[in-house]
């Protein structure tokens, strides 16, 4: 039944207007970023914001990025991939069993560990960056890839997601049935729980990878120079853009549109993961709210 009074009609119009305005707000900058590398700096300044330049310009910009300090950009991307994938592996190995144990086994200190995990999970990771820096510089790990990989691997949110998943998706009865069939505790985990765990592994992997890939503050203090990941490198690149630093006499300069292309390159891996992950994301982000 549709209410067609003028007030209801007006309400719907306002609602649609809001939806459209915010869709534009969220999407316009990204669309602009996709177009920007097709234009030269001159075209960026003079042409309409959404006019298309040429693919040749993209190639030129690509060339200038590739040659920027002997391919430093690729070193940064490689670093990011290395740190994030190593951390992802450690995160899965540590958090999946931990979440399982918290959800489906009994041991002393279980409640305390769960409460600590929840609390640490809600503390923003940036709050611990300088304390971890101070700690790691006391043991002389600054500048070592481990200084990023190890803190990246500590991911209490992953433990929480796994805990929620196992406590809702798997019943203790199912595990008991396997036990009666003679399965050992490790076999119960490996043969009953793990085959059902694919969705939560994907979810933990997704959040771990994207948050580490986008992390700026932690690697910025831990890993300077050539060891930096792309997020830190991108900000570094900024100081080679004459528009932003006219006094800089750096030998290799980066044009504005090449910087836009570099930004695209930096976000591409996360964007791709996003496109593939969107379906299960909605489920995951509301994991805490599902009722039993």
């Amino acid at each position: 039944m549709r209410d067609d009074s003028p007030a209801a009609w007006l309400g719907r119009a306002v609602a649609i207007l809001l939806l459209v305005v915010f869709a534009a707000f969220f999407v316009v900058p990204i669309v602009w970023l996709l177009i920007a590398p097709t234009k030269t700096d001159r075209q960026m300044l003079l042409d309409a914001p959404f006019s298309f330049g040429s693919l040749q310009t993209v190639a030129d910009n690509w060339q200038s990025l590739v040659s920027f300090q002997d391919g430093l950009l690729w070193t940064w991307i490689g670093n990011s991939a290395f740190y994030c994938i190593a951390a992802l592996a450690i995160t899965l190995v540590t958090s999946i069993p931990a979440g399982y144990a918290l959800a489906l086994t009994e041991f002393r200190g279980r409640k305390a560990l769960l409460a600590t995990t929840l609390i640490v999970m809600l503390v923003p990771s940036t709050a611990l960056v300088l304390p971890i820096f101070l700690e790691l510089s006391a043991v002389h790990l600054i500048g070592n890839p481990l200084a990023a990989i190890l803190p990246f691997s500590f991911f209490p949110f992953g433990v929480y997601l796994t805990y929620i998943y196992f406590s809702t998706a798997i019943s203790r009865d199912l595990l008991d049935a396997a036990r009666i069939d003679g399965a050992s505790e490790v076999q119960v985990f490996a043969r009953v729980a793990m085959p059902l765990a694919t969705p939560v592994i994907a979810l933990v992997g997704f959040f771990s990878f994207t948050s580490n890939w986008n992390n700026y503050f932690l690697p910025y203090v831990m890993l300077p120079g050539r060891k930096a990941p792309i997020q830190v490198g991108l900000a570094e690149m900024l100081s080679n853009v004459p528009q932003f630093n006219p006094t800089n006499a750096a030998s290799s300069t980066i044009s504005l549109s090449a910087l836009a292309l570099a930004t695209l390159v930096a976000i591409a891996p996360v964007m791709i993961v996003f496109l593939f992950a969107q379906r299960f994301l909605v489920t995951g982000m509301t994991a805490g709210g599902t009722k039993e």
Partner: protein
Amino acid sequence: MERAQRQVGLAFISLYTVFLVLFGLLPSAYAIYLAFTKRNAFVGVANFVKVFKDYRFLPAVEHVGLYLVVWLVSLIILVVVLAIIVHAIGVKWLSTGVRFLYYIPGALAGASSVMLWLFVLDPTVSPVSFLLHGLGFNSFVETVQADHLPVTLAIIAFWTGAGGWIIVMYGALNNISRDVIEAARVDGAGPIRTAWFIQIPLLRKWIAYMVVLSFAGGTQLFVEPRVLSQASRGVVSQDYSLNQLAFLYAFKQSDFNGSAAISLVLLVVALVLSVIFVFRGGLFERA
């Protein structure tokens, strides 16, 4: 059997617990130690007094505070309103599509989102240059003047984060039973009354969750002002936020004790909020 379960439980949490100690508890303990000592000698609250008296400290608190007010108010109002509107869309593909569009910027965080906003905020190249010119900004440096920086930073943070929260609220709205909504409609409640008297009260826990996480995260402000400072050649100062100040203490002044004192203040704020929320927020009852 019970014993075997206990052993496996302990074995399974052991590795995670090591990380929890090394990168959660130990750094916090070390920060506490550093904050109350100087050259390994106990100095009471001297480090705190020193950083509080630093001429840069109060302005940084003020900057972060203003930013938080603007950001949190807009986050609460807009996220709730948009989630309710998106939830009311009857066409499935449209609703999914809108949610996805809103969520896309979530892929950009850290330096890359600020980098994109450098372009958006520069009237000479911006996709919304007409808006910036309309507001009277003709150069990047004018756009990032200190007095409207809290608003600018709030817009950037909203752009990256709001979509995720809209999805969370949308999920929570799905948990409200249709019968309740239907009953309200039969009683003659329009969409606004339904939202105000039924949906928003049932979203309260989730709104609290968003506010706690956003408030704690917002106090940590670092990358946005840092990159803007780099790009504006110091128009945005290097010590704009508290974390930047803590950073300068550690890296420019080699004063780890002062740095630890500021970090500890921020950590305690986040920790207190988090503890209150875990035990009082109503979201983690099962724990």
